């Protein structure tokens, strides 16, 4: 192997046949798809065709990128991907974990798991030695205890990925967890792992990762780490991390409140970053990160719970819960059981609204912590009718109950922490995200508020107006290229850039120092566009060509209701204007009016091999 920065090696595991082997992949693929999400999308496109997401034929991919295992700013991430049991399309998520460091040091860029074990197992990887071991003693345990037990056996110097009871019980939004608070794979990657009877992956790597220019890498990283520490926003970031967002989303009518029926919460102050500061007992971070954001508090039951904004918005204000120590209990349960906090919050909120409207007879109502907690556990263990129903996610619930008007999801994935009654660009970001309604790819809301049109001589006399200008579509794409493309492929955390303003110029330079390959910004954007087109092609193929632009619509609630309170009371999105904005998005992407990449776009992006396969299910323009 002559490549630098990439090993060009994927560890393959077949649990049905107890087989393990190493697949080498071509340099051309490494250069085109870089790693992480890019590599995962390439693998799933080629291998997970028309599969049952919870069947043995689905492929579960743990993909690292060139940044991982090396001293790069916040470069301790890993992507976990599979065909999603929640959405039926492409699913992935990233987490910060020592497992990515050890995976790369063990000599692999990714692991692909297929098949299904007869009894619960876990994988133990120590460089070239890979064992499939019994996990019967671990099955049923929470993710915290599972990781502790595995570290007792294999020592502390390992990376561990595991699932909890939610993954074992195939909760559709079960995630893969690491280090008691890091989660990946909102669209049910934990359920895919559970369906394979794979409880955990433990990795220990001791090799040296081949790097093109070690000295340059060291120099650039040192400079970037210093720039992060010297940023004016750093001291406050260190205090509150993403929890600071509660205050400003609440101020801007964007804080999800009572199943997204409103954008500000009367008890926001008691769940915000300042309240969290008073409860904080420690701070956790990901490998190679010098701006750790995992704020650990003691919850109402005296247990540690690691909070961030999304957890608190969706399990707090969105459930009408205004006590942070109670919200922290729900968050800790979600992490320990291995459930996505966002989807769990939105699913419970959906139940609460259905109960309040008399559609469901029994169950929690907004503000009822005790019953919310019971339901969270019922979901994880799939206990009872309600637990089982809510474990399927909001889309399935809406189909069963006829509650589409308040079903907060896109393509089956529940909406994360931004309420968009007055934010069309953010709604477009949710509509067109690669996995469903997630903010990680185009968090455009700040730009949207900051650049709101100000007319007239005296700016202060002018109202914020909801606008649908074409620049909004362009901005969503620009952010998707960076956040959903570049960072997800590297695989690095975007927060140094987003939160403390680290210059983007570091990233291509670091990538070149690691791999020896010079990427221009045009190259990086093309790689991102390639991944977006491939993932969209994946969705269309898996939906057997039954695809139209409505798939890229945000939840109906944002069109048909208005905000209930605040300065923008009564305002909401306009469906026709959103549709026009969506057309602009497609035009800029080179996709047709259904939202399917055109032939010439696929050719331009070097995805010729995708064309014949897509043509089997639909006619391409």
């Amino acid at each position: 192997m002559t490549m630098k920065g990439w090993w060009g090696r994927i560890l393959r595991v077949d649990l049905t046949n107890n087989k393990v082997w190493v697949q080498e992949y071509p340099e051309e693929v490494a250069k085109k798809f870089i790693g992480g999400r890019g590599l995962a999308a390439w693998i799933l496109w080629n291998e997970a065709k028309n599969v049952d997401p919870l069947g043995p034929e689905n492929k579960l991919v743990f993909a690292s990128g060139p940044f991982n295992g090396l001293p790069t700013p916040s470069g301790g991430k890993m992507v976990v991907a599979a065909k999603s049991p929640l959405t039926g399309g492409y699913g992935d998520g990233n987490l910060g974990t020592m497992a990515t460091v050890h995976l790369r040091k063990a000599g692999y860029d990714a692991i692909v798991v297929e098949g299904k074990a007869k009894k619960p197992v876990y994988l133990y990887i120590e460089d070239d030695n890979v064992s499939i071991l019994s996990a019967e003693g671990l099955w049923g345990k929470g993710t915290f205890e599972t990781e502790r037990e595995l570290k007792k056996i294999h020592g502390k110097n390992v990376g561990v990925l595991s699932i909890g009871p939610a993954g074992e019980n195939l909760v559709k939004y079960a995630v893969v967890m690491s280090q008691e608070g890091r989660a990946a794979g909102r669209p049910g990657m934990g359920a895919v792992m559970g369906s394979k009877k794979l409880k955990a992956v433990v990795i220990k790597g001791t090799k040296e990762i081949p790097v093109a220019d070690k000295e340059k890498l060291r120099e650039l990283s040192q400079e970037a780490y210093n720039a992060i520490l010297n940023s004016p926003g750093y001291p406050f970031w260190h205090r509150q991390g993403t929890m600071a967002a509660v205050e400003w989303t609440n101020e801007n009518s964007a804080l999800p409140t009572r199943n997204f029926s409103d954008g500000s919460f009367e008890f926001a102050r008691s769940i915000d970053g300042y309240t969290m500061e008073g409860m904080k007992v420690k701070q956790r971070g990901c490998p190679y990160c010098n701006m750790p954001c995992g704020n650990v508090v003691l919850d109402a039951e005296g247990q540690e719970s690691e909070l961030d904004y999304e957890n608190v918005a969706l399990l707090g204000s969105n459930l009408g819960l205004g006590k942070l120590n109670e919200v922290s209990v729900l968050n800790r349960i979600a992490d320990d059981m291995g459930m996505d906090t966002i989807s769990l919050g939105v699913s419970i909120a959906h139940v609460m609204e259905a109960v309040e409207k008399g559609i469901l007879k029994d169950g929690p109502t907004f503000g009822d912590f005790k019953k919310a907690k019971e339901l969270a556990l019922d979901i994880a263990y799939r206990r009872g009718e309600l637990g089982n129903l809510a474990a399927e996610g909001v889309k399935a619930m809406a189909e069963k109950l006829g509650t589409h008007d308040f079903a907060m999801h896109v393509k089956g994935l529940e909406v994360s922490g931004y309420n968009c009654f007055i934010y069309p660009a953010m709604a477009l970001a949710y509509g067109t995200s690669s996995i469903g309604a997630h903010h990680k790819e185009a968090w455009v809301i700040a730009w949207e508020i900051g650049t709101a049109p100000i007319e007239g001589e005296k700016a202060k006399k002018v109202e914020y107006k909801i606008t649908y200008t074409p620049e909004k579509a362009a901005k969503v794409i620009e952010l998707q290229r960076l956040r959903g493309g570049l960072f997800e492929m590297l695989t690095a955390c975007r927060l140094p850039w987003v939160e403390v303003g680290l210059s983007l110029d570091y990233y291509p330079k670091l990538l070149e120092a690691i791999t020896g390959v010079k990427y221009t910004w045009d190259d990086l954007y093309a790689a991102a566009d390639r991944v977006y087109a491939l993932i969209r092609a994946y969705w269309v193929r898996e939906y057997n060509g039954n695809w139209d632009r409505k798939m890229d619509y945000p939840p109906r609630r944002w069109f048909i209701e208005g905000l209930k309170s605040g300065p923008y009371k009564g305002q909401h999105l306009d469906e026709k204007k959103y549709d026009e904005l969506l057309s602009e998005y497609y035009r800029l992407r080179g996709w047709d009016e259904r939202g399917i990449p055109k032939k010439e776009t696929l050719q331009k992006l070097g995805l010729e091999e995708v064309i014949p396969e897509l043509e089997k299910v639909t006619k391409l323009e």
Partner: protein
Amino acid sequence: MVRIKLMGAFAHLAGARELEVKIDGKKKVDELLRELIPRYDEFKDKIIMINGKPARGDAEVEDTDELKVMPVLSGG
């Protein structure tokens, strides 16, 4: 008095979450905040509101106005 509500890192840097400042006549928001918040100009993305409505840094405030300013952080 101009009442100023500072959020996030601005509150940290200014050492206060709320301030009241006496100004004579009118003053541009950026000029006012530069005096109160160390390293103010190093923040690229910020939201400014005057009397509850969005504004830019070059908008002018006068003595009875209420100003809110926040650097924007994402939720993860």
